[in-house]
């Protein structure tokens, strides 16, 4: 059992449930850091890495269900982004641009990883056991809540891995990371209608895979 923090702390730490628009940091700061990084300032780039490493890692982790793969891909994403910084003209936000690199890396990686890969999942945060929604879902099934949560986590990740990459991506970005449809459209280079339709089919499939847990 690790440190005790509230669910809001977890969400804030992971920066996953808040939409991009509610970013507390002004965009100019990112722009200034990007400009300095473009001139080879590694300290400025370090700051950008510090800001976005959690989100990028999280997206890649949910796409791969593997801590090791997500770590490697996160590193590769930031290294590639630094090398390609000269071509970044600021047409989109740095975050969107960085996400595109990460997502492309993940999709290419998953295409190469043909065989089913054993999952290596991150630990569940302590507060998961106290999430009222999850408690309601689990408590009816078994009194051993912790074991049930671990089982649910495994089933959830298995179900995610059964989705196609575009479907898994929209679920990751919207339902897990909380990005709005428009932002997802910009990242995936498609319109909002496509995002919504992919989200619909992905949820429908997940509902079927997780029928035991869904009413």
């Amino acid at each position, binding site marked *: 059992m690790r440190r005790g923090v509230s669910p809001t702390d977890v969400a804030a730490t992971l920066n996953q449930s808040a939409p991009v628009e509610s970013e507390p940091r002004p965009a100019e700061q990112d722009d200034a850091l990007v400009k300095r990084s473009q001139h080879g300032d590694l300290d400025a780039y370090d700051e950008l890495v510090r800001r976005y490493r959690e989100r990028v890692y999280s997206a890649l982790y949910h796409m791969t269900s593997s*801590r090791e793969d997500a770590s490697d891909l996160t590193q590769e994403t930031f290294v590639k982004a630094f090398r390609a910084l000269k071509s970044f003209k600021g047409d989109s936000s740095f975050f969107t641009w960085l996400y595109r690199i990460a997502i492309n890396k993940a999709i290419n990686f998953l295409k190469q990883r043909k065989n089913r890969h054993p999952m290596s999942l991150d630990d569940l945060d302590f*507060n998961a056991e106290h999430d009222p929604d999850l408690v309601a879902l689990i408590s009816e099934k078994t009194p051993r809540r912790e074991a049930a949560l671990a089982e649910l986590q495994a089933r959830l990740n298995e179900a995610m891995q059964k989705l196609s990459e575009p479907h898994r991506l929209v679920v990751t970005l919207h339902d897990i990371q909380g990005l709005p449809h428009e932002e997802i459209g910009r990242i995936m280079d498609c319109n909002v209608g496509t995002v919504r339709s992919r989200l619909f089919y992905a949820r429908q499939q997940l509902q079927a895979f997780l029928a035991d847990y869904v009413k």
Partner: protein
Amino acid sequence: MSFDDQFKDVQRLLALKRYECPPPGHLARIARNIRATLKTEPRDRQSTWWDALLNQLDLGPAWAAALALAVAVAYFYGWTWSHRAQTRAEFAPAIPTQRWIADANPFWSTPFSSGSERAARVHDQLDRPSIYPILGMEPVRGWRPSSNTRGIVPVDYTIRSP
């Protein structure tokens, strides 16, 4: 029922994934690795030759528009030039002259010593169309065999000089 209400339970289940956290210090280690990797690389190294090329070609919108306009003008000019109305003179085939033949083959260009009367006469004939006997000679049937040509050239062809 709204789009999101339809899958409320699935969304609740997916919320569990927000609680999946990497071990403490894991992300800091990743950041250190990124820094170490970038420090060991030359700053201006491009990942691939293709990246380098794309970066080289990375034009601003104004330059891209100017380039596109120049290509369009060149294409339009080429198209109109290739479809222009041609004059009768351009259609008429050039008649080959004996000067062409003489220039092409040294045999015909130096038949006589320069300055002689025959050389002057041949020179005058150079601009005649090639349908006339070549430089005053015309191929006729019949071959005058000699010790050098016997057995090599068909006996029924010969060249008779004027």
